């Protein structure tokens, strides 16, 4: 495997990891506050559709992004109402949200565009285009670092950079701000937060809201940056992988970066059967490659990374009065 091929695989890794990373951080905020969310998938999907639809109708991808975020937040609000206000089962609410998004996106797309649950293709300002970072061209000839900078670091859409910046930002919010302290506390022991005079419901809604924003960006990235439009079910299980990555990351931002990069890498490498064949010398069945990220997830979950202890109050509604 030569250097350039490695760069290409890593480049692909970054693109594939970005939606996972955003969704994973989204889940991180929510679950750190004690709200489990298997509805990441549905939120991404809804955001993908609305961002593409609005970007197409207005011609502005930024408006599309806002619409995507709004759609995702609407589903977050639903999740919040079900699991925070009405203390319902968070897993069930997540399942319902996934169904709802899968159905509604196609239904609305069909109603609006009559293209079989798809949006028309986006062009020009309706899409996020890749950004060439300063000096990328001129530095390209520098050995090793030049290609790394030019091929790997430069040339992504703004949302990729946003996603990567979200990692330190998330860390900072969680561990350096008052909000972060309270957020973590409410996922560990909501009663402690409550008796300290801070609203558990408010904090949890805020967390679920942030989760909505990030899922919205993830969905918009799928439809308006990676792709030029929405097709049905385009989130294709990424929400679930993000959840697995979150557990793998033990609910920590920097680990989330690493684990989503790992999953991105697994997906990228699964696209290159030729490389695998060259490296290990045997041809691997496509189906095995296809299943590889999932198999590895299971192996990882089986405890080869040590026990992942979820936030203690996670998944449990906070009930004061029985």
């Amino acid at each position: 495997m030569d250097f350039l091929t490695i760069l290409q695989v890593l480049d692909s890794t970054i693109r594939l990891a970005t939606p996972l990373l955003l969704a994973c951080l989204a889940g991180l905020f929510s679950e750190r506050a004690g709200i489990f969310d298997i509805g990441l998938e549905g939120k991404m999907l809804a955001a993908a559709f609305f961002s593409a639809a609005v970007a197409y109708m207005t011609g502005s991808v930024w408006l599309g992004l806002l619409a995507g975020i709004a759609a995702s937040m609407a589903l977050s609000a639903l999740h919040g109402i079900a699991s925070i206000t009405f203390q319902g089962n968070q897993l069930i609410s997540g399942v319902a949200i996934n169904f709802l998004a899968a159905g509604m996106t196609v239904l609305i797309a069909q109603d609006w565009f009559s293209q079989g649950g798809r949006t028309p293709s986006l062009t020009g300002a309706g899409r996020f285009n890749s950004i060439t970072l300063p000096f990328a061209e001129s530095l390209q000839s520098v050995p090793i670092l030049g290609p790394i900078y030019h091929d790997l670091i430069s040339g992504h859409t703004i949302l990729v950079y946003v996603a990567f910046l979200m990692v330190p930002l998330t860390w900072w919010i969680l561990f350096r701000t008052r909000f972060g302290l309270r957020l973590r506390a409410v996922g560990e022991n909501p009663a402690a937060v409550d008796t300290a005079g801070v609203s558990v419901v408010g904090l949890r809604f805020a967390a679920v809201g942030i989760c909505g924003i990030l899922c919205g960006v993830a969905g918009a990235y799928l439809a308006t940056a990676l792709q030029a439009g929405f097709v049905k079910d385009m989130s294709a299980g990424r929400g679930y992988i993000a959840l697995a990555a979150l557990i793998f990351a033990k609910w920590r931002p920097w680990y989330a970066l690493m684990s989503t990069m790992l999953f991105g890498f697994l997906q990228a490498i699964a696209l290159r059967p030729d490389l695998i064949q060259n490296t290990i010398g045997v041809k691997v069945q496509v189906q095995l490659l296809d299943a590889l990220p999932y198999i590895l997830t299971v192996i990882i979950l089986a405890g080869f990374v040590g026990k992942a202890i979820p936030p203690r109050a996670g998944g449990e509604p906070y009930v004061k009065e029985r």
Partner: protein
Amino acid sequence: MSGTAPAIELKGISKAFGPVQANKDISIRVMPGTIHGIIGENGAGKSTLMSILYGFYKADKGEVFINGTKTEIPDSQAAIAAGIGMVFQHFKLVENFTVVENVILGAEDGAMLTPSIAKARKSLKQLAEEYELNVDPDAKIEDLSVGHQQRVEILKALYRQADILILDEPTGVLTPAEADHLFRILDNLRNEGKTIILITHKLREIMEYTDTVSVMRQGEMTATVKTAETSPEQLAELMVGRKVLLRVDKKPAAPGDVVLSVKDLKVTDGAGVERVKGISFDIRAGEIYGIAGVAGNGQSELMEVLGGMRTGTGTISLNGEPVDLTGKYSDGQSRRARGISHVPEDRHDEGLILDYTAWENTIFGYHRDPKWSSGPLMNNAAIIQEAEAKMQRFDVRPPIPTLKAKSFSGGNQQKIVLAREIEKNPDLLLVGQPTRGVDIGAIEFIHQEIIRLRDEGKAILLVSVELDEIRSLSDRIAVMFDGKIMGERDPETTDERELGLMMAGISEEPDKPAWKAVEENLEAVEHGEAPKHG
């Protein structure tokens, strides 16, 4: 009527949880600079009332006056603003946060953490000096002893500048020495002019430390009196509504053969910490062997090993036959088959399945007994019938086997557990905290049942944190500290002071003030060192 307004005045507070009326039209006044005690049976509504004052629950009706002004307390934020602090029965701490983080939570200065933490560190130091409240600000809560966790709770309140401090059963989990320390702190606080409300079950504490006392029964405030003008007997009567025998009557024991023999038993918990460090003892037929000790010194693990819930090393034998400790050949069910019954410490989490009906609970743990089944199917009709009979015999109220366990009161729940375990007619009965959270009337009954079993010639191992209970029931008393038995005493000849010291890991050391030795010892244990005394 003096000129000063009461620090706290509640008027006509009512609160219902669904069908349960926890507080009915309660009024109370507490003067500033006093310690006011509240006593009452379990479920009388004490915690609920205080939680309302603290804004944790919202009252259905009623008014609150703080220092004479009417104050709305819709949430804890408002209570804190009004100068109220509360230490809950179950601490409200974030276990994997440090002490400072817990202290500033909700009382941060500004959006950034670093300055808040710096400031809190400083004022913690001050408070520690001022009130003898030392804790390492950077220790994680989960690494602290209960006593220190409680200090953190008090610090939280003081850091928020509370003038009124509510403590809900603060001494239930403390050693006598720790409790003494706590009351010294409370005394200091009172001398500074702060107002303290103290909920406790222990009449002794009320008599010794409070200025005034209120008694609650079934959601109502039955009396408020000056402590100096009342007696324990009167308070007990006010509490239960009838005269209560504060001592247990029993004949001297007639011990027979050794039933349970434990040798060099060691237990290591899931985290790899050794909780029982090689203990040995025997229990004979017809005697009650009581183990005293502060919660968390290995008694629970001891009971769990004997009951088959954990594995351990060493040897135990029952009626001379060895019992498997590896968990490979035995579990709770095979222990039961061997004649060991077990009343666990925690009836909610262990002894009962709260969502099961009473009849289902009467066979819990014995459900594989062939008596209850024909083939793979259980013989429900027979079980229900038997359950009804047991409930009658143990005076469970109401005696309806189809009710869910969670709809019984604490005392009646405990009676269901006891009915199941005692009616099994075991050779050995393990009883943990038999009267925790049980009202005085039921306590009387439960104690009588345990003694009856002893008099029938059964061996009984009793674990309790209540010294009074241990002393009045046991025929021999052992004290556990840090996984070891500190020694055995005869209940007739020992006293509370001696046992209390042993509970803190100290044999008599006349030249040292007791509290000093206690502190040093606890500290050493906390820091993973071997205790210096004992």
